[in-house]
Structures are given as C-alpha cells and as structure tokens.
C-alpha cells in the first residue's frame, strides 16, 4: 500500500499500531468512568505490550525497510523492541502499586508510558535523521511529563523542570547537528551520511559533533550527565526504573546503528565517544561513593553503566553488537529487579529510597535483602551473575579496539573496582545488624514480587548459562548489515 509515493508496510508497523491502540484505549476507558479501578488501566497497558509482542512474531525472518527507507525492521530493531516491551511491562506493573506513583492520574500516566515506548520503537528502527529526531522527541516529551507525575513532592516537580530545560538544550544540539549533517551530505538517510563521511566537510564534522552531544545527553554520558542524578532522584520510582533501562536502550539503538552504518573500524570520528565513555565510567562510579539516597546512587550507577555499554562498540565489530545486547539485557533484568525491590519495600513515600532505611534489612526482610544483594552483585560484576559475564564480553570488545579500547578497558576495570566498594557497602549495610533504625515502610504486594523474581531469575540464568548468549550470537551478529 502506498500513498503520495510513500510505501508503507503495515505488518512492520503493527507493533506500533498495537501499542498506540492500547494507549488510546487506556485513555478512553479512563475517560468513560472515574470508577474504573487503576488496576484495569495498567492491565490494558500490559495487555497492549503482549499484543505488540505477538504482532512482532510474524516479522521474524523478514527483514525490511519501509517508509521509503526511513524505518527499518530488522533483527537489530527487534531485539531493542523486545527489551523495550519488557521494560514497559515491568514499569506498568511497578506503577500499578500506589497512587503516589501516578499522582492519581492513572489513565494519563499509563498512556504516556505507552506513547513514550512508541518513541523508543521509532528510535530502534530509525534509519534516517528525521525519524531519529521524531523518536527521540516523542520519547522525551512523554518522559518530561512523567518525571513530574509525583507532583505532590517538590523533588518530582524539580526533576521534571530540570529535565525539560536541559533536555530542550540537548534537543537543540541534536536538531542543529542533524541540519548541518543534511546540509553537508544532501540527504537525511544514514546511507547518505555514510557517503559524506568518507570525505567529510567542515559542515559535516560540526554537524556530527552536535549530533553526538545531543545523543550523549540522552545516554547521560559525562559531561552531559548532570541532569541524571537529580532527575532520577526526583522522579517517581517506576519512571526512574524506566528511564534507566528503556531510554538507555533506545538511545543505544541509535548510537549503534549510526556507528555501524556510518563509521568503520578505527574511525577517528568516534574518539570523542570513547573519551566520553571513559569519563562516564570514572565519574559515575566515583560519584556514587558518597550517595545516601538509593535512587540517586542508581542514577550515578546508570551513568557508569552507560559508559560500560559504549565499550561494546570499541571495535565496531559484529561481535560488539551482540555483546552490547547481552549487556543491555543483563542490565535490564538487574536494574528493573533492583527497582522492584525498592517498590516492594516502599509505600510510596520517599523514605524507602534513603540508604539509611536499608540498614539491617536482612534481619527484617531476608528475601528482599537477598534479592537486592544479588542485583547489586550483578551491577558490580561478581561471577555467577549476568553482570559478570556482560563485563567479560565488553572487555573482549575493548581489546579489539586499539589503544582507545585499551584505555576504556582500564577505565572499566578501575570503575568496577570502585563500584565494588559502592555496591558492597550497600550490601554490607543490609546485612549488618542495625540498632535504632526507624521503622521503615514494608510493603509486600504481589506485583513487585513478580518483577523481583523475574529480575533475579534473569540475572542468575544469564550469569550461569552464558551459552544462551552464544546460542543467539549468530542471530545477533548477522543484525549488522
């Protein structure tokens, strides 16, 4: 089917359509009656995730580019889409818990989360500068609102405002960079840009610099990370979880696609990216040392983790993409699990994010403490967890990346050493007998338990059976065209 010269393959867009329909349905149901229980709205959201996943299944084996070469549906985008759906479902489950999460506006909140994920889908498939920008903006605009939905708390409003203002600045860089790239290459498709990169003009290099800066903001890479700790701390818990996984995954999809399509091995153009990654690993881990708020600590941690993931691209090799996806998946299970533990323990108030209230947790709630310890071990990269094997794969890529790769490997190892202290201290606190800790909220709802168990299972399975990764490696490696 086509109109006005644009060819559209609807099956390719089916997942997006499914999600959109789900989001609209949530809005309509919410509009129809105020008596609808919140659980129903979130249930529709989760159902639309499942529906989107089902519509993805027939696509398997039929890689194609639609919308006149602007939107790709390939193994590369499917993997990211699956990750996004997983994150969306978990976030919806975690959000369904308490009113404080959505500020009492369950319908708008759930719908925005879904629309936000659609932005992520667009980013994962984008093969052209305009689509990239569209995806990023759709994702970001929805997130700006979501960051502020915990609005009775001042911190949430502060987070939203900071996110909006700094995010706009970043979008400015991004769109200006895209414009320059278009000017230099005469096209918006990544293919056209790749051709221009072979003999770059001044306009081109400036454009790419700005583009990279804009993307680095979304990834919270140092020095464009400054918003992250504040926004992570201020946003509602489930949104923080979503930001640390889904936004990163979607932005990495763009970064990887650009790196693989436009640049080759040993490209000088990517050196600033390596530098930014090294800075992120250092700042993220060192900055986490003194944190007293767990959400903020995880904010710094996510800065460091983003730095690690960049290492996967060090050699711009096919194996790198597989390593990146493995690490992202491991990171998703681990991080979502950690946030689920926080959601489980909390009652919607802010005390559950204070590290002090985790002191001696093991003696009050042994299982959540054990799960949290597992997730933190995985974030640190202790063997038998997914995080360990992820780091093994990243290091392998780093060694294929020339001197800058070695530099990143050193930063990765150093950052990991520091992070042993950061995460180890939290675990230590949880397992040390605590006297005089104020009674902390101790929720025990079913929904977050599901997420905790799923996160723990993923963290362990990928840590103990790395051959699962190798089983899918040929599939992933072939995603690089």
């Amino acid at each position, binding site marked *: 089917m086509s109109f006005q010269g644009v060819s559209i393959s609807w099956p390719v867009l089916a997942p997006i359509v499914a999600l959109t329909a789900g989001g609209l349905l949530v809005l309509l149901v919410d509009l129809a009656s105020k008596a609808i229980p919140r659980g129903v709205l979130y249930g529709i959201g989760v159902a639309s995730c499942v529906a989107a996943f089902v519509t993805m299944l027939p696509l398997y084996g039929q890689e194609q580019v639609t919308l006149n070469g602007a939107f790709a549906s390939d193994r590369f985008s499917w993997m990211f889409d699956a990750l996004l759906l997983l994150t969306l479902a978990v976030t919806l489950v975690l959000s369904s818990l308490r009113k404080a999460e959505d500020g009492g506006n369950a319908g708008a909140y759930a719908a925005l989360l879904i629309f936000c994920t659609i932005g992520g889908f667009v980013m994962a498939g984008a093969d052209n500068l305009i689509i990239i920008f569209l995806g990023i903006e759709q994702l970001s605009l929805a997130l700006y609102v979501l960051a502020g939905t915990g609005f009775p708390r*001042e911190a949430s409003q*502060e987070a939203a405002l*900071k996110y909006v*203002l*700094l995010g706009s*600045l*970043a979008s400015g*860089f991004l769109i200006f960079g895209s414009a320059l790239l278009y000017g230099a290459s005469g096209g918006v498709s990544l293919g056209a840009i*790749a051709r221009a*990169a*072979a*003999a*770059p003009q*001044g306009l*081109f*290099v*400036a454009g*790419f*610099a*700005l583009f*990279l*800066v804009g993307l*680095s*903001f979304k990834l919270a890479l*140092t*020095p*464009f990370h*400054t*918003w992250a*700790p*504040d926004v992570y701390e201020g946003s509602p818990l489930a949104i923080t979880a979503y930001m640390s996984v889904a936004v990163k995954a979607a932005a990495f999809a763009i970064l990887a696609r650009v790196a693989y399509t*436009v*640049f*080759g091995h040993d*490209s*000088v*153009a990517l*050196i*600033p990216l390596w530098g*930014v990654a090294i800075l992120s690993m250092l*700042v993220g881990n*060192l*900055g986490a*040392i*003194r*944190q007293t708020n767990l959400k*903020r600590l995880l904010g*710094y941690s996510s800065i460091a983790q983003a730095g690690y993931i960049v290492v996967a691209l060090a050699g711009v090799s096919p194996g790198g993409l597989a390593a990146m996806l493995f690490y992202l998946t491991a990171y998703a299970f681990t991080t979502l699990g950690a946030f689920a533990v926080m959601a489980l323990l909390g009652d919607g108030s802010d005390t559950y994010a204070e590290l002090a209230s985790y002191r001696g947790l093991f003696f009050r709630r042994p299982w959540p403490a054990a799960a949290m310890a597992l997730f933190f071990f995985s974030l640190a990269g202790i063997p038998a967890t997914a995080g360990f*094997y992820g780091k*093994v794969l990243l290091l*392998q890529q780093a060694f294929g990346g020339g001197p800058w790769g070695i530099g990143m490997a050193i930063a990765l190892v150093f950052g990991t050493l*520091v992070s042993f202290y950061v995460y180890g201290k939290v675990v230590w606190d949880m397992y040390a007998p605590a006297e005089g800790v104020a009674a902390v909220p101790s929720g025990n709802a079913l929904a977050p338990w599901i997420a905790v168990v799923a996160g723990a299972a993923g963290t362990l399975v990928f840590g103990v*059976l*790395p*051959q699962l990764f*190798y*089983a899918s*490696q*040929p599939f992933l490696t072939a995603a690089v065209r």
Partner: protein
Amino acid sequence: MEGFVATVPFTILFLPFFGMVLIALAGPYVPRLGAAIVGNLSVLGSFVLTAVLASYVWSLPPDQQVLTLKYPPAWATHPAYWAHIPPLTISFELRIDPLALMWMLIITGVGFLIHLYSIGYMQESKWYRTFFAYMNLFVFAMLMLVMAGNFLWLLVGWAGVGLASYLLIGFDADRMAAVLAARKALIMNVIGDVGIMVAIFLMYAHFGSLSYKVVFANVTSAGTSALDWIGIWLLVGAVAKSAQLPLHTWLPDAMEGPTPVSALIHAATMVTAGVYLIARAHPIYDHAPAAAMTVAVIGCASAFVAATIGMAQYDIKRVLAYSTMSQIGYMILAVGVGAYAAGTFHFVTHAFFKALLFMAAGIIIHNLGGEQDIRKMGGLAKRMPFAFLTFLIGTLAISGFFPFAGFFSKDAILDELQLLGHPWLWAFGSITALLTAYYMFRLVFMTFFTGAYRGDHEPHADRSPTMEVPVAILAVLATIGGWLVLPGHDEMSRLLQGAFGDRGILPTMGEINWFVTGVTTFSAAAGLVIAWWLYERAPQLRRRLATMFAPVQRVLANAYYIDTIYHWLFEVPTLTAASDIAKYVDPEGVGGVIAGVARTTTGLGDAMRGWETGYLRRYGLGMVVGMVLVLAYYIFVVHGGAAVGMR
C-alpha cells in the same frame, strides 16, 4: 546404560546442592529435624548413586575407565560450549575415572556418616539448619573439585570448599577465636587459590586449553622447565589446602569449628584435596622432576615436623589436627615420588581412621561439656567404654599396627619409597611412624588412663544412636579397610589401574619387603612402648626428662613459633604500612581524590536540592563546555587533518 552414565554424575554432583537450596528456602518453616533429614538424604542419595556408578565403571576394562561428560552435550552443535572467550573455549566438563570415584565414594560415604553424626552432635546449636546447609554446600563443592574435567571447574570447587570451610570454622560466630580462625584459614587458602590460578594461566599459555584431556595429551609439548613451573604453582595450591609446610598454620586453628566439621573437612576430605590435585595432574609431575621432588620433600618435612609438634600438645583436637597434617604429609610424599596409588590408598584408610578419631573424640568432648584439654581428662576408659574402644581402634590404625587399615597403606608408601630409591625420605618416614605411635598413644593414655579423672565437672554419659552408629561403622572400616591389598586380594591395585596404569599396582603382601615392614612395625611398637613407659610406668622419668629438655618442649608446644614468625614477618609490616597509608597518604592521596570527587559531586547535588535556578544554568554551562570540546576536536583534529575520511 548410555543415558544412565550421561545423567548420573550430574545428579550425584547437584543432589547435595539442591539439598542446600531446599534447606535454605524452607528455612524456619520446617522443624529443625527436617533440615537434618534433607541434608542426610541428599548426601546418602549421592553416595548410593556413586556406588552404582563406581560398580559400573569398574566393570569396564581398565583402559576404558575414564568417562568424560560435557555440558552442552556432544550432540549440541550450537553452541557446543558453555563459554567462549576467543581463543579459549570452555565447557562444563566432568571426568569420572577411578581416581575421582575413589574420592567421590569417600566424600559422599564418610560425608553421610558425619551428617548422621551431626544430627545428635549439633543438637544444641542455635543455627542447626544453617549447619546442614553449609555441610551440603561443602559436599557439593568438594564433589565439584574431584569430578571436574577441566582445571577451571576444579578451581571453582577448590574455591567453593574454601568458602564452606571458612563458613564452618567460624560457625560459632559468637566466639572471636572461631571468627579469627576462619579468617586465617580463608587467607591462607586464597594464597593457594592464586597459586592454582597462576598454574592455570601457564597451562593456558602452553596448551591453549584447560581441559584435562587436552593438557595431559599434549603435556610433552611444553618444556621441562615450563612443566616444573606449572607443577610448582599447583603445589602452592596443594600446600595451602592440605596444610603442608609452610602454609599449615591455619589447620590447628581450624579446630575451632564444630567437631563434625573437623572430621569431614579438616581430616577426611578437604585437606586431602592437595593430594588429589597432584595425583590428578600426575602426567605433569611425571615430566617435571624438580617439581615432583619439591612435592616429596615438602610432604616428608611436613609429616615429620607435624609429628614432632603433636608430641607436645594438650588439646585433644589439636593433636589430631597435627596428626592429620602429618598423615597428609605421607600422602603428599607418596604422590611426589610417583607412588600415586599408595598415596590414594592412604587417603582412603586415613579418611576412615581419622574421621573415626575425630568423632570418637567428639563424643568425649560432648560428654565432658566441651572440655578439650587432655590434662583435665584421664581414667575415661571405664566411664566411656564405647568412645575408648573406637578411639583405640583409630589409634592402632593410624599408628600402623597389623591388621588395621593404616598398616597397609603406610607400609605401601614406605615400600614404594624403598623401591623407587629414596632412602632418606624412607628414613624420615619411618622415624615419623615412631613419633606417630608415640604421640597417639600418649593421647590415649592421658585421656583414658593415667589414674583417675582429673576434670572439673562430672562427665555425663549420653548415648545417642545417631552418634554411635556412624562411629561404629567407621571403626569397622578402620579395621578392615586395608585388607584390599591382602595376598591374593589385590583389589586396590585393580581399582586404581584405570587411573594410573602401571603406577596403580601396589607392592602387595605377596611381594612383601620384610625389611621395610619390619622397620615400620618396630617403629610403631617402639612408639607405643615409649608412651606407655613414660605415662603409665614411670611418670617420674617423664617429669625429669621434661625438665631436662624444657626449651625443646617449649619450642614444640609453640609449634616452632611459626605463627609468631609469620606475625612479625607479614602481619605487622602489612598492618603498619596500611595504617601509615591511612594516616599520611590517604587523606591527601588516593582517598583524597576519591573523597574530593564525591564531595564535589554530592556537594553540587546538595546545592541543587534547593530549588535554585542559578544552578540549572550551571548544568547547562557544563553541557555547553563539553559540546565545545567535542566540536573543537572534530573541527581541529578531524577536519584539521582533513585528508582522512571519518569512515
């Protein structure tokens, strides 16, 4: 049979592991006895399956007795490995051969008896369920160690038993001494772990694989000096785990753990892992004469030194600990000179009689309310006849009296030393046999005779069948366990032939070396007579001797002051350096930087907590500065060197 062989080893390995998980998950929801039953049954199940597997393997011809099992299995084409870090490919690999089976039988068999014994012995412990979970963890890790078909998985088991040992030595976490002992054991064992890691790196560098099969098949492709180095680094691991000189000082302290732990981990199984390692790596040591000789000398020296220390100790478990070190010295000596079968044989009999000794001693300690000082015992033969009888059997066995188990295995080792032409090692081994009989009978006389009971409180005589049955079984095994090499009954040789080939043939009673056997028996008898003379017949003479040789006695009682030497050599300088660094370097140095960065960032964050627009501008400024730097790089570096394309 194919399917059986493919699955049973995994079941044997993971049954204790799942037992542990079950105990941990069920936690406080089941009665205490439930945890004990799960622990016991899982280990018993492993033992039964091991017995079945062993009877199958030993029914095969000797040259087919090595089974290799892999996960992913052979039919899995993709991925055909567990992990792949180019160029190293790793599978989860098990190797079942007579050597592994011998260890598996003892680990699960003796392990089960000790689990059974623990039901009663640990009755008063606060952490009853935890104890069984840890014990199961140990059995799992130890099985991993001996069943591994690859040095990497061996290392996993190796570290795992170290962890279990740490947890169990410090099991009474209320007592500082137990915690310190656990820490000491862990540190020394980690030194050993590093040794094995270095050996693994070397093997990887020379053979490109860590699989036993590949390494042993290509062993000659590496030069002698490379093999010597691999052997030496493996020896570092063996020495630490098996408490041999110079890394032995943790073992006496490890007696702070509950007695079943001492019996299972620090006598029968874990501490013999070093012997296993060297026997397992025998193709390497066969081609590494210098390393093998070092092994033998260290074993011999440890056997002798530990025996001398054992003569001057008063804690019943410490004496047994030094005797363990000494007996393992014999085993290490045996595998060092290439008498692999004799070393393995001694491991088997030692597991019987040493577990027996510890558990009999445990009954005494249990009934004396925790008393371990033999100066406060005496005259217990009549009060605890069962403990006396079983302890006596153990003592006769360890001293090497015919026809008890220790006689045959010790004789086999000393025989081999003669045959292979090591007169000096043989001489020291024989002297150690005399010392062994002396200090063990000294223990028997001081505990069970030498007049009346000297303790402070009246011993009670609880009799619990779960404690006495395993001890009785072990007493029988310690008596008849050596008969596998009686004339015409050379079962032991046939059992081990599949693992060591001709090396598996033991000198049997048929080709008896009367000289060696005579000297051994004479040594044991002399030790017995001297102990009897000094403690029963002429105590005045003993006191006179003690005054005459007071300095010697002091040195021995303090175990040659090795602990003190280590304290001044390693502990003090390390702690001084650490506190100096903390005092002078850290605030301004490394820590200063870290603290500074953290302070700066949190300070910035704290400043941001208040709602202050000015600081948002600063964030933006930071971004812009970053952007300018990135832009500058592209314009001046990339574009400046314009000839290069960016692709």
